[in-house]
């Protein structure tokens, strides 16, 4: 009888749909994947090792380079860890600026995901629409921090720069605009038959699997777990805002798609409220010593990044440098489930499944 030949295919590290230097060794029979082995580490820069020789403020730029699509959350998690240890409380105005910046970053990150995901599935236009809106966000964050992606904006105890004049108004104006565009996105893509047939029921897993594999963010919420650290373990000033956690039950790529798009809406809600409550004036930096020396001990904090739980562990021996610094990088954890999802799948679904996990290679490799 005829036996088809299995072949070994290296997807990546240079492949348009791995979104970075990620390699996937797959064994395929025709177009059916028999086995998939992810190979990572091409972008490992040893942030944690480098950090052991740096002061806390000096580490912040390194965090920008982990999840470079939502660097504000990375900034924040480090500052938050240090603040938790040292018991520093950032002034209100700074806290609001941080939240606005983080939520803008979350929207930008989801927009990039949306655009590139559609690009992976073969639709070219949504990418350009998404990037138009993202560009506006980037410009706003640029005005705030002076950088487009690697912001280096937050400091232990506050932020580096105050908002420029009229900036808050810009954010205020952006919210309704973005809502309108989001509506357009749904009209353009969400109801498309081909798109639905490509993502519905693809790469689905159960709630138990999601928890067992330590997934987080939209990857966890798509299975029906109502879990968002902004709500469940409120940090910063998130307890002051009224917003929802978008949850879906199916656990497939379609559910993840909806979770992310609805998260944009929720972020817009937060932005709206934050702009309204924004304190007229006040300091943007708590009175912290020039050289921050957290007390001896260790601390692990986790916050909600666009990709899931980002955590920061600091072990300090009372010196100005951390003794050990560790980031819990959500993409790294989320990616673990990939081999399980890919087994027995069609080659074309590889892209749909990988894309739906939403990884950033800078974060996977640390």
């Amino acid at each position: 009888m005829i036996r088809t030949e299995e072949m070994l295919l290296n997807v990546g590290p240079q492949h348009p749909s791995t979104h970075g230097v990620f390699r996937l060794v797959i064994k395929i029979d025709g177009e059916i994947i028999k086995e998939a082995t992810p190979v990572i580490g091409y972008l490992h820069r040893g942030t944690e090792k480098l950090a052991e020789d740096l002061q806390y403020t000096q580490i912040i730029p390194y965090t920008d380079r982990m999840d470079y699509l939502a660097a504000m959350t990375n900034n924040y998690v480090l500052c938050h860890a240090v603040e938790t240890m040292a018991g520093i409380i950032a002034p209100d105005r700074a806290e609001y600026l941080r939240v606005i910046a983080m939520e803008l970053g979350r929207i930008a990150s989801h927009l990039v995901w949306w655009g590139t995901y559609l690009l992976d599935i073969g639709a070219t236009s949504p990418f350009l629409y998404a990037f138009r809106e993202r560009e506006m966000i980037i410009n706003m964050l640029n005005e705030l921090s002076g950088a487009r992606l690697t912001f280096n904006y937050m400091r232990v105890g506050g932020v580096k720069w105050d908002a420029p004049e009229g900036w808050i108004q810009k954010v205020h104006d952006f919210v309704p605009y973005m809502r309108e565009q989001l509506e357009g996105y749904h009209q353009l893509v969400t109801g498309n038959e081909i798109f639905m047939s490509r993502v519905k029921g693809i790469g689905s897993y159960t709630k138990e699997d999601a928890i067992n594999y330590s997934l987080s963010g939209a990857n966890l919420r798509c299975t029906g777990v109502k879990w968002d650290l902004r709500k469940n373990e409120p940090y910063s000033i998130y307890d002051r805002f009224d917003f929802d956690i978008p949850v879906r039950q199916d656990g497939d790529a379609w559910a993840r798609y909806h979770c992310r798009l609805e998260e944009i809406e929720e972020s817009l809600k937060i932005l709206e409220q934050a702009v309204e409550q924004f304190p007229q004036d006040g300091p943007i930096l708590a009175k912290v010593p020039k050289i921050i020396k957290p007390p001896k001990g260790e601390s692990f904090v986790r916050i909600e990044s666009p990709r899931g739980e980002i955590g920061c562990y600091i072990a300090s021996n009372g010196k100005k440098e951390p003794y050990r610094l560790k980031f819990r990088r959500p993409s790294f954890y989320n990616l673990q489930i990939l081999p399980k999802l890919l087994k027995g799948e069609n080659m074309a679904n590889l892209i749909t499944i990988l894309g739906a996990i939403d990884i950033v290679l800078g974060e996977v490799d640390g």
Partner: protein
Amino acid sequence: MAEEKGLEQLKKEAAEKAKAAAAAREKGAASAKVKEEPAEKAKPSPNQHILDKYVQEIENHLGKEILEDSYINRLSKDIPTLVAKPDTYRKVAELLKYNEQLAFDYLSELHGGDFETHMEVYVHLYSFTNQQAVALKVKIERSNLEIPSLVPLWEGANWPECETYDLLGIRFTGHPDLKRILLGEEWIGYPLRKDYEPYDVEV
């Protein structure tokens, strides 16, 4: 409930809350900054009873002398911290997962650290059923860097353990596919160890 309230009212409330908090914070920030901590330390942590429950549960099932230590880590949002011994680590982890009172079904974080005298594995667990968190730690002798793997309990421990092995050289026995996940198999040495000498010192 919050959902039932009108949006207007909510906004107003939130604004008031914000104002109050802002006042309080500014006051605090201006006067005390770091000095707030010692004052608070005197009173017992709100999480003390949770820790007691954990310890009780462990002692009930596994007997005494199982844990090396248990305390509330005040620097880390008052998280109950359990320190297991290398030989009891796996048993404690199993109990933490399968005991109904504990039911820690979610492994949030696993990493290691080199503390020169010993190495340490830090595991942050969370229970969705009980909405509680715990930090499980284990200290390992540098001479015998071996510890049971948690992958059979939590699939999510797979890559983090690989990473720990890769960067610190802690071997996890029973791990399905322990490999140097980030640096590659040909890398020499374990970079996150404190005594690690880079191949090219200048770089």
